């Protein structure tokens, strides 16, 4: 069973690396600032999923458990069993921090895009570039 799990895991990680590439293509090539922002969100999220998957593990029998104690442990042996079956909690905590900071940055970026739209009447990045060239010639 664990071979199938590992094969699926490999496919999933590869898919998210490819997703990173596609998201970067969106950031580089799309002219619309909204589409650039959406691509940036996709890029951050694929990196976060790869980071979480570092903490994944397989067991010889059964499935791994989330890092939350199902009930108050009564003996040290019960706690030790939980340590043997749980996945890595540290990556999840770090990714939660990364999500919040990414969220703050995205909020601010969307504010800047709204200001851009107010100024130029469009979210096309090429409009501001052309205007800059025009000013330089004058």
């Amino acid at each position, binding site marked *: 069973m664990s071979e199938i799990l590992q094969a699926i895991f490999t496919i999933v990680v590869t898919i998210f*690396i490819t997703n990173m590439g596609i998201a970067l293509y969106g950031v580089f*090539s799309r002219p619309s600032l909204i589409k650039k922002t959406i691509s940036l969100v996709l890029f951050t999220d694929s990196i976060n999923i790869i980071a979480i*998957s570092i903490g994944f593990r397989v067991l010889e029998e059964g499935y791994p458990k989330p890092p939350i104690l199902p009930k108050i442990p009564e003996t040290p042996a019960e706690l030790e069993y939980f340590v043997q079956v749980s996945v*890595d909690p540290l990556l999840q905590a770090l990714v*939660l921090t990364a999500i919040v*900071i990414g969220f703050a940055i995205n909020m601010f970026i969307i504010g800047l895009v709204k200001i851009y739209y107010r100024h130029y009447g469009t979210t096309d990045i090429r409009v501001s570039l052309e205007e800059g060239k025009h000013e330089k010639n004058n």
Partner: protein
Amino acid sequence: MKKKDIVIAVSLAIMVIAISSALYAGGIIIITPPYKVRDLAKNFLRYSYNPWNGKLTSYALNVVSAIIWDYRGLDTVLETAVLYSAVIGITVLFRGIVEIRGLKHRGLSLLVKMPSRIVIPLIIAVGISLAVHGHLTPGGGFQAGAVATVTPALIITIFSIEALYVLKLRIQKLFLMRTIAFIGILMISISLFLYSLMSLTNAYVLQNMIREHSNISMPHWFIDVPLAGSVFLYNILEFFTVFAGLTYVFIVYSMRRKEVENMWEEVETYE
């Protein structure tokens, strides 16, 4: 223009292949998931709720919450500060907006409005329960705040932004609520330290439970449930900071044309 697209596509393909092959070679992460977790993670899992080792535990059943607010608490306080500064940045960008009540509004049809009247209290209840049980079950302060913020977004979309004004959710009030909650987080993080200064014992900043060389702690047991001391309080306050901050941003971003039309005029008179 065509040449640029080709260069971007080729270089991105090379990047994807390079990262994938580095992973398959076992360089950065092991592509086949391991049978054992790392020793660091093992320690966190072992000491998160461990009454047999009183000097390292935090009495939280949710290990992720224990890491976020106890073992790596400073990171999370700074993260809250980042979110706070993003809201301040948005305030600076959108300075000069005024809330005007009584503009024409319609909202969506009755078919959408009636079910959402039933769903909205349920969403708020789920958010509060996620915050209050953040140290016992999956959840936590930020997730709870993000869930509860769905309700202002739904109200703005389905009814109108007027409905939020009727509910007395004004942007000044939200900003004040957010600031008070953030100051509360900072005060709790130094409360045991201040207490130790008064009672002439030792304590650390961001301390939760009894640690080495320090015998004072937050309450860790409430009647018959574990309370996890400051983790519980931080979760509640983080719920308010995130809810107030995100609602503030939603309201600012969905202002009508008349409310934003003299956005920067006040500033220009300053200069």
